[in-house]
Every structure is written in structure tokens, then in C-alpha cells.
């Protein structure tokens, strides 16, 4: 069980560091098109920033509202990924063949660009949700099995 931190230094620094970390996470996610980075790394950084927020302000504070909301978005990233692939299927190509991505008024290069970016966003969302939910379930969920039952089995 994690309680909110009451040190003024930690709380103030948290307010400064967390937005920067989130911005950096989004930068890494978008920059993955041109260099090292991408959805997985970006998602991990975003998740880390949210976990930092939970550690400092607690899960119930208004500062952790995004972390609370995102826990319900388990399958969203997967659906984005599958949806982009499905749009390519509808266009007549193979799964994830961005040349057939059905988004109007895009030339082929932009189709690839948008397709890759969307799948990376899907990956990032999923990694972020998974990271936060691991942290939350390790620290906040109670044991469901009573102690006497554990000793019996």
C-alpha cells in the first residue's frame, strides 16, 4: 500500500518532472519514425511518469486522474492496432500493408507515415496501460484469499 508523500520538495519536483517526462514520452513515440524510439519505449516513459505521479500524490488525488482513467482502457491500444490492420485489409492489401490503408486524400508515403504512427500510438497506449496496471495491482489490491485458506492448500 502506497501513501501520498508529504515532503514539499518531492511534491513540487513531481509537479515539474512529471509533465516533462510525459512530453518526452510523446516525443520519443513520434520520433520513432525517424530514429531510435517508438511506441514501446514511449509507452514505457509515459507509464513511468504516471507511476511517479501515483507514488508522490497517491492514486486518489486529482493529479492521478489520468492514471485512474487509463486503467479502464486495457484493450484500446490493441483495438487501434487491429483497426489499422483491418483498414488495410478492407483496402485489399495484406494485414498492415500500409499502401492499401483506407484513409482518403493521402499519397502513398503519407499512408505509410500515418499507418506506422497510428500502430505505434496503439502500442504506446497498451504498454502504458499495462505498466500502470502492474504497478497498481502490486501496490493497491488486497489479497483475495484469506490467510487460513492459504495454509490449507
Amino acid at each position, binding site marked *: 500500500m502506497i501513501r501520498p508523500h508529504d515532503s514539499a520538495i518531492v511534491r513540487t519536483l513531481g509537479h515539474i518532472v512529471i509533465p516533462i517526462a510525459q512530453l518526452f514520452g510523446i516525443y520519443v513515440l513520434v520520433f520513432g519514425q525517424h530514429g531510435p524510439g517508438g511506441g514501446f519505449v514511449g509507452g514505457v516513459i509515459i507509464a513511468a511518469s504516471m507511476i511517479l505521479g501515483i507514488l508522490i500524490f497517491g492514486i486518489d488525488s486529482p493529479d492521478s486522474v489520468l492514471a485512474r482513467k487509463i486503467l479502464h482502457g*486495457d*484493450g484500446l491500444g*490493441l*483495438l487501434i492496432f*487491429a483497426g489499422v*490492420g*483491418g483498414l488495410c*485489409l478492407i483496402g485489399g*492489401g*495484406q*494485414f*498492415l*500493408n*500500409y*499502401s492499401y490503408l483506407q484513409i482518403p486524400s493521402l499519397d502513398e508515403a503519407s499512408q505509410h507515415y500515418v499507418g506506422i504512427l497510428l500502430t505505434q500510438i496503439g502500442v504506446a497506449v497498451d504498454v502504458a496501460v499495462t505498466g500502470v496496471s502492474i504497478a497498481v495491482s502490486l501496490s493497491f489490491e488486497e489479497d483475495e484469499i484469506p490467510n487460513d485458506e492459504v495454509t490449507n*492448500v
Partner: protein
Amino acid sequence: MSSNLPVLLFLVPFVMGVSMPLLTAKRRSWCPNITLGTFGVMLLLSIANLRVVLAQGSIEYAFGGWAAPIGIAWLNDSIAAIVVLIMSLVAVITQIYGRLDIAKDLEKSIPYYTLILIMVSGLVGVIFAADLFNVFVFLEVVALTGYALVGAAGGKGLVYAFRYLLLGSFGASLYLLGLGHLYVATGTLNMEDLAVRLPELMTSTAVAGGLIYIFLGLSIKMALIPLHSWLPDAYANAPSSVTPLLASTVTKVSLVAWIRIEYSIIAPGVEVSHVPVVVLLEELGVIAALIGGALALIQTNLKRMFAYGGISHIGLILIGVSLGNTTGFAGGMFYLINDAVMQASLFMIAGTLIYYHGVHTLEDLRGVGRQSPWLTGALVVAAVAMVGLPPTGGFFGKWNIILGALEAQHYLAAFTVVASTLLTLAYFLKIFSCWFHQPQHATSEPLVVSNALRFSLGAISFSMIALGLMSDTIFQFLIESITTGGV
């Protein structure tokens, strides 16, 4: 669109599984219907896929338009098409059955249905994957959902699910280690590519070690004796509603993955320091078939007995596919398909017995036969198929494995098939002697079973006989896949 059928077969259960919480948040009672509907769509798609493969031969599906070895490829060949078809059929029937025989707390549980759907999508992935790393990923999808499903009923099942998790993760690590060896030695993980590069490297101990790691990892997953210890307890304590699906698919699909690796990478006749590899595998199959049958004979718990029966059949299939000739291979593959149906049938019967009669062990069975004609019929058909009498599919599978063994002059293998048949007959005699025994209590009224249960038991028994009647066609189809190259 027809060329996209493999990926559609994967996407349908996957997307439905992921969006299950969204679709059923307000109406939880829809969960079983949506799951059943998804499996129904999969069945139709897999029939269409079989027709495509019959018309066009094996097709390579290149993801993103990038052909292998640069891109990731799936291979849609006759083995994949037919295994996916049988798997979808089993999924539909076990889901119809599972709706009746389900624990109260699982009945409206969204995670439970999500896990089933994602497990099935993972199974489809393993069957189609033509790339060692893809096989690993999908095997892990199947395994992780499998651990959760085994533990879904809670109680003792959790302990066995945890043991399954430890052993399964160990197997996955071994597989990954072997994969690393092969990748370092060849620089590729695509099976077709490996088949070109590996034969000249077979003298390297790194490659041999890698293949051994891969085999060990997969043999934990397919519960090959002596690495089977997770299976009987896990299946005996898993929720009855899902055990038929688990028992009929998970181990079989790991075996399919191994068969693909064996046939695309280890060509028959390959020797590692003068030891023919496939003969070694065959001996392992002999051990598994005999010990599995003997262990089944000494069980008193019905579910455990059936689980050991399945373990001994894994050995038989391994014998068949490792004989190195097409007859044995087709026999082994055909037996694999049959075994999937037989295991589903047996665990459905065991689950129904627990649900309606509270029967767990052979002792409790006395007199049940007089109460349930439908169960008796289903059990007789399943027993005939397991023992291997015509006209069920079991006979034709075993017959071809024996023919293949004689053709290869491996008399020990032929003897093992016969001996394992006798062991199977022995443990079914044990069951039937209790089944038709005079009831202990004189309270035997004919039991009213629901129509859906009758349908699922009838359908699974019918498919065992139908597989036997269509055996010749299926054999030709399976043999075609190895004579035309890729497996």
C-alpha cells in the same frame, strides 16, 4: 479477400476477446452468446480456408506485403487448414457444452470469456506461424491464458495452475534459448530459410544444442513423458466448462509446432554424430505411449485417467510423425486431429458426470449407465475411437502408424502402437465394468439432460465417426502437403 483468411481467422477471436469488456459491460448475459457466435464465424471461415487451400495448394501470407525472409510470413498449408478447422469445430461444440456446465461465478465473468477467445486466437497463430519467433509469441499467448483458465475456478486449481505456470515458463525459456542458438548460427528464424541453411551446420554443437533446447521446451508444452507432470493435476482441477477445450487443443497445437519445425528443419535421415535424430524422437514417443497408458490404467480419478490417456496419445503421434515416411506421417497427423476430438469428448463426458451425478472417481461411477443413455452412447463411441476400432478415426490413424512402422522396419514402434491399444482397452474396461455395475443406491431414475447437452455430445461423437469415414480423403490431403515440399 480469400487470401486474407488466415489473418481473419486470427483477428476474429482476438478482436472479439479484446472488445468483450466494451460490448458486455451493460449486458453480462451476452458473454457466452458472443463467444459462441465468434467460434461459429471462425468455423465458417476455416471451412472457407480449407476450400481455398484445396483449390490453390499452400499459400504464404506475407504481413504488410513484405515477403519472407525479410518480412513475417504465415504458411497456410493443408496441415494448418485442417487443424484450424478441427479446432474451430471443437471450440464451437465445447462452448455449447460449456454454457451448461459452468460454475456460477464464471457464468457472467467477462475475463473468463476474454481469456478463452484470446487463447483460441493464440492457437490459430501457432498453427499458421512459419517463423520460430512467431511460434514462441503465440505459444506464450496460449500458455498465459491457459494458466489463468486452469486457475479460474479458484481453490485447489490455483496451486496446480501455479505449477503449470512455473513449468510452462521454464519450457518457454528453454525454447527461447534454443531459438537464440539457431539465430546466432544462421542469422534467420524463418523456417523455410532455416531449412536451407541448417543442414550443412548440423555438425555444429551449437545448432544441435539449440534444437535440443527447442525440443525440450516444446515437450514441456506438449506434456511428453517425462515432462508431463503439470498436466493431469491441472486438467483435473480446471473448471469443467473449459477443460475439454484446453485438453483437446493446447498440447496438440504445441505438437503441431514441433512437427512443423521437425519437418522443415530436421530432414529425415539427418544425423548428429552418427545418431539419426528422428529415431531418437521415435523412441521418446515409444516411452511416452507405453508409460502414459500404464499410468492411465492405475488412476482412480476419471479426469486424471483421461488426461493420462491423452499423454500416451502424444507419444503415439510423435512415433507416427518421426517414422520418416509419408504413411507414418499422415497417420500421425490424422491421429492428432482425432485425438483433439476424442479428448474434447472424454472431458465433456467427465464434466457432465461431475455436474449431474457428482462423479469424480471410478468408485462413484457404479450404476450411472442405467440413468443416462446419452452419456453411455457418447462414452461408447469415445471408447471405440480411443481403443481404435473402425469406423472411427482412431483406427485409421493407428493403422497407418503401424503400416508406416512396418514400412520403416521399426518393429518396436509397431509393437508400441498395439501395446498402447491394449492398455487403452484395459482402462476402458475398468470404466465400463463400473459403468454398467449394479447401482449402489436404488434411486436410479432416467436423468433428464438438456437438448444442448445432447446436441454437443451427439455432435462430438458424430465427428469422431465422420473423421473415420472421410479418412482416405484426409490422408491424401495430408500426404500432399509433404510431397509438395513445405509442411
